């Protein structure tokens, strides 16, 4: 004779109406005389209904935008690799010299406008909130875009954005609320004249890749 534990194992199939006839009749007979099992199966039936009726969540309104932006970025990266690689194979020395030359020209063009200070150990790099970014039109930091952030510095502390753009939510999770205010520009052309920045504020320029990051500080300000 089956015990309640044995009947327990049949509950799911019974509820799914997939139990064979013999076991079904046996279980129904048992339920008629066992209040505990009857109560349990009623609860299971209830839970099954509740679970199936749980609200369905939908993706955020920027989901598609983010996804397709990431896809475009991957496509661009692949295309760039295809462009460089064959050239590299043909003449690697020329490639290296060409890249170095372009880098020097780029650096030279910005040298007069920007002063470059390398990060030192005294800087504490914190993460800042980007609500202003996200409340505006720009709600996703696309890889390769330059983010210009003006922050209030407090006691020589810089606050910078650090992000991995392949993982939007991970990036956003990294930000903690601070008292710092920030103004974010989505394009290099919007970068204000550094000399007009009020005292004790800094302007930081970051790019995605560690190797390309520059921390640009106006030399006139003391931090």
């Amino acid at each position: 004779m089956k015990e309640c534990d044995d009947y327990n194992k049949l509950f799911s199939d019974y509820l799914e109406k997939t139990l064979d006839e013999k076991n079904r009749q046996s279980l129904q007979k048992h339920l008629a005389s066992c209040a505990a099992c009857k109560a349990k199966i009623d609860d299971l039936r209830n839970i099954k209904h509740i679970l199936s009726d749980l609200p369905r969540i939908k993706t955020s309104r920027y989901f598609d935008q983010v996804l397709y932006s990431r896809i475009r970025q991957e496509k661009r990266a692949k295309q760039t690799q295809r462009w460089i690689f064959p050239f590299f194979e043909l003449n690697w020395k020329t490639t290296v010299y060409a890249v170095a030359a372009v880098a020097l020209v780029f650096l030279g063009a910005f040298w007069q406008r920007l002063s470059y200070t390398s990060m030192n150990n005294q800087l504490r790099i914190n993460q800042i909130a980007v609500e202003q970014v996200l409340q505006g039109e720009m709600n996703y930091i696309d890889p390769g875009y330059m983010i210009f952030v003006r922050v209030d510095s407090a006691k020589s502390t810089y606050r910078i954005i650090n992000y991995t753009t392949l993982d939007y939510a991970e990036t956003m999770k990294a930000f903690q609320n601070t008292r710092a205010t920030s103004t974010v520009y989505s394009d290099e052309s919007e970068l204000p004249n550094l000399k007009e920045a009020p005292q004790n504020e800094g302007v930081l320029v970051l790019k995605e890749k560690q190797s390309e990051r520059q921390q640009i500080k106006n030399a006139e300000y003391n931090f």
Partner: protein
Amino acid sequence: MSKYAKLQSDLSDEELIQRFQNDDYSAYEIIVSRYKDQLLNFAYRFLGNVEEAEDIVQETLLRLYRNKHAYRQIAKFSTWIYTIAGNLAKTELRKRKRRKVVSISDIGFDDKEYEIEDQLATTDKDANTALTEKIIQKAIDELPPRFKQVIVLRDIQELSYEEIGSILHIPLGTVKSRVNRARLKLQSKLKDIKLPAF
């Protein structure tokens, strides 16, 4: 909807993925629109966190994009994509234990608005219903992963036992057994709470 778009939307998942494998990218877009919400629902009920769940879905769909040729028509497409999402979700669960999670809500981050479709169309979603949902989600979160997977896939996503078995690579009997035990575990967690009767 254009005639072409309608034709595409009538295509099965397997036909769409085949078209995508032949570089028809509009087929990919239809797959995305078909699966993004249901995958999010699955990942959310499994992880209990909406932002993490959306990450999982993003990554799943990116992997589909990158590795479209990895799909072979031996299995259902839904099985394949749920397997990817499920593996990513399990990985995320393991990673979660090793790091501190900063909740987006803590930073007043509200630009992402998540719509929740109210399935109880004829009933007002009152405070009791919302509370019940929270309690149930908490109980689901506390289930061991092997039970959580099956109960989410069966009772929430309403996949068949056979499909669940394919996704999780476990025999049919094991699926049924775990579903049963998962429901019993949930029942014991919720026994002290008065849930609405159906």
